[in-house]
């Protein structure tokens, strides 16, 4: 069952990548993207209105070809999503009878300090991971973009962490940061620095989880930035250099403004995936325990909202409350994405 939330972040990245990529900005591999789009849009809007039914009839092979995705999507994604709306107003233990309780689950949610703590934990982990992740990704992309040799190697190397099993990474990080017997503390001790209780302090726990996410997703974002960088015409750089701009000035006056749509895309995707951290704390802090499983580690410092949701649904069998948690959390993610959108797109000139 853990596969649903586990798989959550991973596919979101690549799928939305290919969906949003062409719409955002012409990237080199897809330089024909917008061109290809234009003719298709024109007959739809300017054609002599043949009516939607005839269009469907004329293009049925295409619709059939794309239908598997939508069928699978509606059965495994859309229906469960809509069903959780219904569940959020019920009290249900998973096999017994459902009982309609109105807004009671949301009232419980409002009064539940653990829910609010989980939201705080999630936001802190998200900030601690996303900010360094996107910054490092940009730096890495600029560095790789300026190299002439082994570029294919660098791209593969950057991409490998994002396709590595998250559970394996979490176990590895758990061993490296282990309080008493971890690699980091062994190094600290050999340097005569006192060991840090990484896995029991409430801040270092978040730091470890954030480090894990940064490690996994920096390369993926760097690849996206790299694609964006290569779409910037070299004439602009030459002109800037002729005008006497240094590399830092070029970076901030040419690279960043022209990358803005790409940055917006990565910020939105990282927000959506970064707020859904689940597997990391679940694997790091004994989810298999018979007593008190999925509690999020010492002091519940690693209890993210999705882990709390999972705990309520599958440990406590309180499916109605769990549904209320995810819907409240969905609204929160939506809010943050909108804020991000406004912040990053502020100066975007209308095309």
């Amino acid at each position: 069952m853990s596969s649903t939330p586990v798989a959550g972040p991973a596919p979101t990245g690549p799928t939305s990548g290919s969906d949003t990529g062409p719409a955002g900005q012409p990237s080199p591999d897809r330089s024909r993207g917008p061109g290809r789009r234009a003719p298709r849009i024109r007959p739809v809007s300017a054609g002599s209105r043949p009516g939607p039914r005839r269009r469907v009839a004329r293009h049925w092979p295409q619709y059939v070809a794309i239908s598997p995705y939508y069928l699978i999507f509606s059965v495994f994604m859309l229906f469960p999503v809509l069903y959780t709306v219904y569940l959020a107003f019920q009290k249900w233990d998973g096999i017994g009878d459902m009982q309609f309780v109105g807004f009671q689950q949301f009232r419980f949610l409002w009064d539940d300090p653990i829910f609010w703590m989980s939201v705080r934990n999630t936001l802190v982990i998200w900030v601690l991971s996303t900010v360094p992740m996107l910054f490092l990704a940009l730096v890495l992309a600029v560095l790789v973009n300026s190299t002439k040799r082994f570029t294919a190697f660098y791209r593969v190397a950057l991409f490998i962490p994002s396709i590595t099993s998250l559970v394996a990474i979490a176990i590895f990080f758990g061993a490296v940061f282990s309080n008493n017997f971890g690699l980091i503390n062994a190094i600290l001790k050999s340097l005569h620095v006192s060991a840090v209780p990484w896995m029991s302090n409430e801040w270092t726990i978040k730091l470890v989880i954030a480090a894990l996410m940064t490690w996994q997703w920096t390369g993926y974002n760097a690849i996206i930035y790299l694609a964006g960088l290569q779409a910037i015409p070299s004439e602009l750089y030459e002109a800037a250099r002729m005008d006497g701009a240094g590399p830092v000035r070029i970076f901030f006056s040419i690279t960043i403004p022209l990358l803005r749509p790409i940055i917006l895309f990565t910020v939105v995707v990282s927000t959506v995936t970064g707020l859904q951290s689940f597997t990391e704390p679940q694997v790091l802090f004994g989810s298999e325990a018979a007593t008190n499983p999925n509690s999020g580690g010492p002091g519940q410092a690693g209890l993210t909202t999705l882990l709390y949701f999972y705990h309520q649904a599958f440990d406590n069998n309180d499916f109605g409350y769990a549904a209320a948690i995810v819907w409240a959390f969905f609204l929160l993610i939506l809010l943050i994405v909108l804020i991000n959108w406004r912040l990053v797109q502020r100066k975007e000139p209308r095309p």
Partner: protein
Amino acid sequence: MDLSRRRFLQAAVLTAAAAGATAACGGGSGSSGSKDSKDLALWYWSGGLSDKVVADAKTHFSDITLKTSVVGGDFKTKLLTGLRSAQAAPDITGVKGEDIASFLPNADRFIDLKTVGADKLVPDYLAWKLKQATTQDGKLIGFPIDIGPCATFYREDLFAQAGLPTDPAKVSAQLATWDDYFAAGVELHKAVPKTFLVNNIGAVFGMIIGQGTQRFIDEDNKFIGDQDHIRTAWTTAVKPYTLGIDAKINDNTWNAAISNGALGTEIGAAWHALDISNAAPGTKGKWRVASLPGGPSNLGGSFLAIPATSGNPEEAFKIISWILSPENQARGFTDAALFPTAPAAYKLPALTGGDAFFGGQKTIEIFGPAAEKIPSAYEAPADAAVSAPFYSELTSIEAKGKDPDEAWKDAVSQAKQIAERQGVK
């Protein structure tokens, strides 16, 4: 290029169709409809039953085709999903000890085992364990596979260094109460500074709760987690922390701690012996087992149940009672460290022999009497959910140095909220 893409797509479609067809066939195990099916499906988890006994059951019941699935991952969730349809549900299933209480309100999803022959076998099995699978109106939905009678595992060599008694009988006598045990821990830590007494204080709390006759919710579905019996357990559990003999291990470093001597004792169930010998094979012969301070307690122990949709409940129970006969339970003990639920098994050679990991000690002398004296307590369906904040707050004390009184208040108020959400009065 174009051709190869078409080929690829064809291959993909064919593969998907084949996979779909296989899945469709696998789904129809034919366990619905008539109640005399000869094909029975058994679900358990890795280590939940002795694989050897299960293999023998297949040959012993030659007229039945017993199809076993070792289900990985979150077993309860998969069982919950499976129970929703007769096609998907197994005919016999394991139910983990920590989950059995949450299935009791939906006892109608299972066969009352007393109607298929369990009533005759009940006297041969531990009454307190059967009670865990019995509804308040007397239906028995699970037959006990194993139990987890608890004891103190201790390092004889470290006890000797600290001048403490080393003989199991003497240790049991001298460390009879929790305070005696903690006092020994202080001496041990003083003599061997790197060695702590307990793994974490949540473990101590769990043991003390298991020694009582009341848990967090009473028979009238009323929250009693704020009463004296829990408060006393809490105060006792916090003592090792204040005395500085708590190793505060709440992460995955337990394996390392147990093998390098950071833990001088472990309080745990009989099956915990396997965890210790797996984690620290190098300490073989150095460990001994003594009685748990403060009286017997139980941790874990699973059941076999028959879902109401089972194709042949009578035959299914015959298989269950064969797998869980005293003789086969003794084999399960040797094979998978499943501690028998039928006291008759405690006299069989498989259990009465010495254990080399414990220096040849006959551990049944500790576990056997403990198993029969474990107090019977009512465990409500929401008990595990309501108890969670107590454990979380105990780790908060260890991790953040949170004030124990404040932690107690927070635990009680959270537990009350969970109780309200779970429909407890």
